[in-house]
């Protein structure tokens, strides 16, 4: 079979082919489609766990029972899952455990650009790095073989340009392996990591690393291509493709396994070429280890530390800047920044928060976009779940000065991911901050994934749906209210009331994502703006709604009206408007209405 597959689809395919029937993860760009694709194969178990740490523990357990288990997350998800992973490195896996880390050089949709190859060295876990979809399909199988053979978790690192690129993949549809036999296995010395047992396993880990270093020397995906011996390039992953594109005639050592490194093979390669370049995105991970062998290389002194590479960046770093072929027009082109969708339930809430001049600690979700003009309703964003702890910390540090001025906001999926414990802390330590859960009934930003409050699993089965109100109550928060963010007055009075109250409180701002089909009510007609009534005050434009525009009136009309405000008129794009009604609530001249008059 010959097919165009994304790196993510190829990882799922490869895992299924090699007998993996168990996977867990938490959505996060660019990793999300791996779980979504895997979940569709016959006879598999696949789950969205509430967060990456849970997913990791679920898969450690599945592997302990003998399964081949796949755990999937984006780069920052590994931070959340690091605790169990580092000790699973000591216990070994029994079955097999492969951890996908999907890194995001250039921060296309992430809060940082961390290089997760460092985790391989830190946790003493081998790491493979595919360079395209075909390799993604092959490498995931190799990763499971290594995991079983060496009794270790194995990392497979992808990056955005591997996960989200599509390339031609050939595979044999008849080569599908059955799932592994599972059984209960008692082995306290290996799986109870108290100090006396862990000290022994610690030694096993170092022995395993030594065996893996020997394996790396002859591993077929650590590949040497000697052509022109003047320049030798040591590289891996997508950087190999970019470099090969720009410099097809140089010699290459392409590392399929980036940790541990094949020291002997690197020395051999170094002896065959006159000069060595190490080409890698982000950290000088390979470069520093190769330099430590006493081999002279050129790396980060010419290649950037930040951002993803492409053939042009590599060419420029080596050859210097190329003059453009022709002079392009130098004009400033108006930007198209990402925005909340028309009808987004977050808009009403953040419009109110922006006007109240409170400090809003934010979190990870679509609503983070409301930091931008004109809403400016969010003032910090660090990581999943951080909003609640930060609001509490700010409120405590400010004391009286901060009373009534600190709000934390968090989405429903993010709250269940890592907002529960910090909210418990707020109740326990008598916080004064107000927390708003933006409950849009789904994990919207990554594309509508299920979570424990949606009532469905990843594989589409009905599930229990946690009652957020009851959960918040149980954590010790007594003051809880629920508002509809399509009702500006109700949101304003709820937020003001809670800000004026002492003690912790929670507002659940509840309305389904406007793109979420399952919860969609009957479609409403787009709103209309009556140009006769509109006085051009621009108040509605403060919502930053993509469906709202402002047009100059034609001169004849303006001549009949001396009001300076009345130079223009608001226009509602009938193709974009989702009739949330916020602009109608703001309009003081009653120009915006639902039905055609």
């Amino acid at each position, binding site marked *: 079979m010959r097919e165009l597959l994304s790196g993510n689809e190829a990882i799922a395919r490869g895992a299924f082919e090699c007998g993996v029937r168990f996977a867990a993860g938490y959505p996060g760009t*660019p990793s999300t489609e791996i779980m979504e694709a895997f979940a569709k194969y016959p006879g598999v178990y696949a789950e969205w766990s509430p967060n990456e740490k849970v997913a990791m523990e679920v898969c450690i357990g599945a592997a302990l029972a003998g399964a081949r288990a796949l755990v999937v997350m984006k780069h920052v998800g590994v931070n959340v899952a690091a605790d169990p992973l580092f000790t699973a490195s000591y216990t070994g896996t029994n079955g097999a455990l492969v951890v996908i880390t999907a890194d995001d050089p250039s921060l296309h949709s992430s809060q940082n650009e961390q290089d997760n190859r460092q985790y391989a060295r830190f946790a003493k876990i081998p790491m493979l790095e595919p360079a395209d979809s075909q390799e993604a399909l092959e490498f995931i199988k190799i990763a499971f073989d290594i995991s079983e053979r060496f009794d270790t978790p194995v990392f497979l690192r992808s990056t955005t340009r591997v996960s989200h690129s599509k390339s*031609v993949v050939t595979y044999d549809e008849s080569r599908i392996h059955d799932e592994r036999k599972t059984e209960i296995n008692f082995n306290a010395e290996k799986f109870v990591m108290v100090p006396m047992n862990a000290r022994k396993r610690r030694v096993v880990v170092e022995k395993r690393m030594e065996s893996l270093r020997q394996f790396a020397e002859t591993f077929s995906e650590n590949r040497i291509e000697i052509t022109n011996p003047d320049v030798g390039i040591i590289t891996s992953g997508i950087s*190999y493709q970019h470099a090969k594109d720009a410099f097809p005639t140089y010699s290459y050592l392409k590392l399929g396994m980036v940790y541990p490194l094949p020291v002997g093979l690197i020395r051999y390669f170094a002896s065959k070429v006159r000069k060595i370049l190490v080409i890698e995105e982000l950290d000088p991970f390979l470069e520093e280890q190769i330099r430590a062998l006493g081999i002279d290389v050129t790396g980060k002194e010419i290649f950037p530390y930040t951002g993803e590479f492409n053939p042009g960046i590599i060419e420029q770093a080596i050859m210097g800047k190329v003059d453009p072929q*022709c002079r392009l027009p130098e004009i400033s082109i108006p930007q198209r920044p990402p925005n909340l*969708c028309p009808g987004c339930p977050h808009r009403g809430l953040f419009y109110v928060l922006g006007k109240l001049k409170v400090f809003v600690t934010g979190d990870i979700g679509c609503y983070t976009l409301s930091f931008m003009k004109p809403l400016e309703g969010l003032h910090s964003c660090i990581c999943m779940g951080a909003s609640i702890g930060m609001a509490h910390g700010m409120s405590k540090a400010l004391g009286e000065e901060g009373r009534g001025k600190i709000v934390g906001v968090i989405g429903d999926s993010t709250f269940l991911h890592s907002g529960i414990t910090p909210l418990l802390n707020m109740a326990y330590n008598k916080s004064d901050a107000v927390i708003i859960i933006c409950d849009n009934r789904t994990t919207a930003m990554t594309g509508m994934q299920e979570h424990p409050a949606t009532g469905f699993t990843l594989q589409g089965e009905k599930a229990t749906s946690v009652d957020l109100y009851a959960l918040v109550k149980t954590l010790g928060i007594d003051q809880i209210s629920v508002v509809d963010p399509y009702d500006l007055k109700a949101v304003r009075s709820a937020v003001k009331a809670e800000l004026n109250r002492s003690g912790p409180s929670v507002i659940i701002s509840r309305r389904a994502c406007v793109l979420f089909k399952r919860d969609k009510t009957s479609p409403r007609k787009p709103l209309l703006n009556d140009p006769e009534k509109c006085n051009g005050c621009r108040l509605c434009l403060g919502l930053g709604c993509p469906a709202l525009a402002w047009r100059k009136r034609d001169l004849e009309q303006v001549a009949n009206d001396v009001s300076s405000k009345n130079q223009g008129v608001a226009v509602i794009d009938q193709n974009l408007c989702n009739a949330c009604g916020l602009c109608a609530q703001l309009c003081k001249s009653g120009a915006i209405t639902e039905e055609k008059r």
Partner: protein
Amino acid sequence: MMQTKAILLAGVGGQGVLKASDILCRVFMDSGLDVKKSEVHGMAQRGGCVTSHVRYGDKVYSPLSKENEVDILISFEKMDTLRYLNYVSKNGTIIINQEEIYPPAVNLGEVPYPSDVLEMIGRCFNNVHPVNALALALQAGNTHAVNTVLMGALSSYLSIPSDCWEKVLRDSFPAKLVDVNIEAFRLGRNS
């Protein structure tokens, strides 16, 4: 040995840029060529800029194009063409949909929509092919077929038989949309 060629598709979220590049890649693959494509998705992209790099040939390494390399730029929005000119090779072809989609700053009346986009581009490039894709899509029967019209316009620059395109189009749309898209493709091809 066929050298690697590069096509860049660019437009605004919601215009069907990614669907078009999926179709294009299938056409190359079915023609027996190697092909890779790359784009970034995940953040709220409605109304934001969307690009898709497509590279094809006997053996393709990188999915990303470098500056001055792209053989054909297909721009789904008039003004946005200007953002990607640095990618286009000197003798490259630029297919421009004449549609104007106003960005927020223009919608709010803060800045005007650039007025002389085609002239500016014409001063730097010789092969510019403007298409009124929205009108042709409407003529075919569905305003959403803008992307298919543009694939039709692109097809006249590639030596791939119509049959191959039409087979992929048939596989890419639900039955009730196939005829509209085949018609949109033909209108684009003859534009």
